[in-house]
């Protein structure tokens, strides 16, 4: 039997009926006498665990244990805002007689995710940079709707009456420029999902546009965000008080206060215990605090440094590649700041001269 967990404010965030307590970590040097919390890479590596729980073709769930919240939050923010992807940025319209106006149609096209590897393209340094084959992809969208000649007389199904009555994302045709034909040959650029309806047409209407796709980050426009979302939660803990066990006749009611599977009731003795594997499914609804008969029997808490990440990928990256990309972006940011700090250090003997901002 593993030893019973006790509520430890140093490691757990207390979840009380009306508030939370002990939210931040206090593991800094000097906070607690006789304890050394200064940075030690070996101790950190011993306490660090990364375990993947579930992987699908579109999402990944993994545990990150032993890091501080600021690092986990940094990865989450980078996943949402700073991992680059490629999306349509400029739409040059020659003909648009559909019911959707140009700018709304262009916004819809911009949101279509493309399956191009952003590592193969450069980012434009500014909006008015020259468009080259290294930083722009060109697509052509040409659809016109016609009446089907031999449609049955009494049908109302647009599929039977008209040809091309919907403009789908599959109608985006890549036009290779320059060297792209060779570089992008084994994975021709196309939308990831070919069934996105962009607009609907009727006979006589047509759209004819040229689309330019560039590399960008979510910070700039949300269409560049590579994740449907990336989020984490802390591992929930249900701590039973051994000095005040749940009364036997109320064991079933106690079990219903929590998410299914979290509490196990022994069929014979009606003793209540927590299923440690299913405990992570607990949604912390605090239902148990609403019943005065259970007061003092249980303490809800969350483990402060155990993060359950859930990342859903949208667009090019397979879900297992997203965290390494985020870590690479983080390391690039650290390297930039470090270079600048080192430059300050080297020029720093003469502080008055270099880099003094006006306060």
């Amino acid at each position, binding site marked *: 039997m593993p030893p019973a967990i006790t509520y430890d404010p140093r490691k757990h965030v207390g979840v009380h009926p009306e508030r939370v307590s002990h939210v931040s970590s206090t593991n*800094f*040097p*000097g906070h607690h006498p006789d304890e*050394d*919390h*200064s*940075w030690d*890479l070996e101790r*950190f*590596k011993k306490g*660090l*665990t*990364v*375990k*993947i*729980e*579930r*992987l*699908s*073709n*579109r*999402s990944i769930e*993994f545990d*990150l244990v032993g*890091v*501080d919240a*600021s*690092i986990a*939050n*940094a990865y989450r*923010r980078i996943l949402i*805002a*700073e991992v680059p992807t490629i999306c349509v940025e400029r739409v040059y319209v020659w003909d648009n007689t559909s019911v959707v106006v140009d700018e709304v149609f262009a916004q819809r096209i911009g949101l279509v995710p493309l399956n191009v590897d952003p590592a193969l393209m450069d980012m434009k340094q500014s909006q008015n940079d020259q468009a080259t084959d290294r930083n722009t992809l060109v697509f052509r969208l040409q659809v016109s709707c016609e009446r089907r000649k031999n449609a049955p007389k009494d049908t109302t199904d647009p599929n039977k009456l008209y040809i091309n009555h919907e403009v789908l994302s599959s109608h985006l045709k890549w036009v290779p420029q320059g060297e792209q034909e060779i570089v992008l040959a084994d994975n021709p650029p196309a939308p990831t*999902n070919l069934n996105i309806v962009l607009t609907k047409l009727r006979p006589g209407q047509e759209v004819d546009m040229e689309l330019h796709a560039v590399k960008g980050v979510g910070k700039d426009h949300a269409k560049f965000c590579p994740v449907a979302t990336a989020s984490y939660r802390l591992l929930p803990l249900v701590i039973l008080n051994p000095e005040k066990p749940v009364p036997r006749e109320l064991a079933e009611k106690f079990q219903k206060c929590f998410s299914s599977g979290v509490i196990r009731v022994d069929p014979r003795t009606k003793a209540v215990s927590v299923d440690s594997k299913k405990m992570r499914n607990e949604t912390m609804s605090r239902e148990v605090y609403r019943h005065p008969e259970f007061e003092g029997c249980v303490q809800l808490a969350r483990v402060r440094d155990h993060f359950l990440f859930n990342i859903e990928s949208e667009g090019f990256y397979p879900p*297992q590649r997203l*965290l*390494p990309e985020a*870590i690479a972006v*983080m*390391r690039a*940011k*650290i*390297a*930039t*700041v*470090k*270079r*600048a*700090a*080192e*430059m*300050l*250090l080297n020029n*720093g003997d003469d*502080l008055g001269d270099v*880099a*003094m*901002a*006006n*306060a």
Partner: protein
Amino acid sequence: MAETSPKIKIMAGAAPDLSAATFQIFDESHTIGNALRWMIMKNPKVEFADIGYVPHPSENLIQLRIQMYDGLSSLNALLEALTNLDAVCEAVENKYHASLATNDYERWEERS
């Protein structure tokens, strides 16, 4: 790069031996700022380190204030923290790849 402002500036009012200084870091936000603050605080010689707040949302910068004991240089503390953060990222990535390689997880098919 000469036209863009330098990445880090030390604001006026810093101590001459840099034991207390406020660094203005451009084009960064709490993403790296909070992580950097945590790592700098892990240094036992640091008396005070904080981001404070982003001075104005229109300007994309953070102001990081570091104060040191014993008259040490806060710039060195910043450099050391940056190196340690890099080591953290590397350790997380290595463990992630190791876990990915063990194949010890549930795989399921998700419909688009």
